[in-house]
């Protein structure tokens, strides 16, 4: 299990901001999240399997865009919106 931070914009799906989820890669993690919270994955990952341009993921504080990035137990995955305005 890894710890996941969900941004405010996606809390309508999860009901809370901090949760635990399963996956040995980010891709597998989003598959797990989508099973539990249908529709969440497509708001973050597009149909070609790419992280959407204005979304950012930090694994243990390091920015990652490759969804094949491997995860280890107790990793901290933060899903955030890129800073912007308007």
């Amino acid at each position: 299990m890894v710890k996941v931070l969900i941004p405010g914009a996606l809390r309508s799906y999860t009901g809370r901001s901090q949760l635990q989820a399963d996956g040995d890669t980010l891709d597998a993690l989003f598959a797990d999240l989508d099973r539990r919270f249908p529709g969440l994955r497509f708001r973050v990952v597009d149909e070609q399997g790419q992280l959407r341009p204005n979304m950012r993921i930090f694994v243990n504080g390091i920015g990652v865009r490759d969804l094949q990035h491997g995860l280890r137990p107790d990793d901290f995955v933060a899903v955030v919106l890129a800073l912007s305005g308007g």
Partner: protein
Amino acid sequence: MRPSPKPASTARETASSRRAPVSGQRLVILVATRKGAWLFHGDARRKTWVADGPHFLGHTISHVQCDPRDGRTLLAAAKTGHLGPTIFRSTNLGRSWKEAQQPPAFANTNDTLPGRSVDHSFWLTPGHASETGSWYAGTSPQGLFHSQDGGGTWQPLASVNDDPQFRKWMGTVQDGTPDGPKLHSVIVDPRDPAHLYFAMSGGGVHESHDAGGSWSTLIQGMEVVEGFDAADVSFHDPHCVRLCPAHPDRLYQQNHCGIYRMDRSGDPSADRWQRIGRKMPKRVGDIGFPMVVHPRDPDTAWVFPMDGTTVWPRTSPQGRPAAYITRNAGRSWQRLDQGLPESQAWWTVKRQAMTADAQATPALYLGTTSGELWIGHDEGARWSNIARHLPEIYAVEVAALR
């Protein structure tokens, strides 16, 4: 919800109407904005409007449509600035919404064409009256999608989205307008669910007679910007195409290069778009975004001119907003500005942000990018404001409730 009042006994029938128009129905205006959606419920005289919203505050809503087949189901095309796109559906006039299980998404990349990602659903069109639950969506980047279950799941039309010729005409996202290239003006012939049209801003007008299995172009007579080759479909920039509901062989188009009309003859090779915008006053021009057609009279249509000179301000010419009406299929046009601001009003009305209701004497409705919602009573003869201070308005539709 209050029941609809019985039609008033003053309902008027014109010689050209096939269905008796009604008066006194309860109408709802569906306003899609950059920061949410609003419903405005009208009284029977269309004088008092009650705001219901925001729905999806903070979400970019490109289009909200009411299903004319049941007069109550709403679909809203939504995204946020960061999140991916989706479609929401309500069966209780917006009291609650459910997200589509499978919103429009392009098929996976194949070997010959690079994979694309839907940025947002831009245009929603209810399907034919005989096909309950059928809907079409046009997206940005350009794609055409079909739902058969009332908007819950959407299937891509490979005949458009993955066709090498269409993809060549579409170009890439970089070839499009800064907001992203759009597929819009999805039209279903009321006589035939297999007869479809759509247009692309940069990509021309296209027609199918087999429910989207195959397509042919419909650009004869349309002009392109000087310097571009009119024989190249990708240089054609229709802004909005509309079909006359009561006379579906007539189409009107607001194009980047003017206002056009086409009358289908039965022989597609003979059909040509005619530039009826040449009859507009030169000082105003015939550039604009929206095109509105009368629900019953094929000779009547409305446009909302914008400044297309030099850098294309896209604002009201000379800062004086006005709609223009033709009642003779474009042979002449009259200015309609009573009640609209007379100076220093630099309005932009997007292509989906002007519409007409289907009452005995239709009223027009428009929404500006500066967040104002207006009604034009008596076919646009007298304008009054319904709401100000809304976010940037993307689309305005009006529906009769049941």
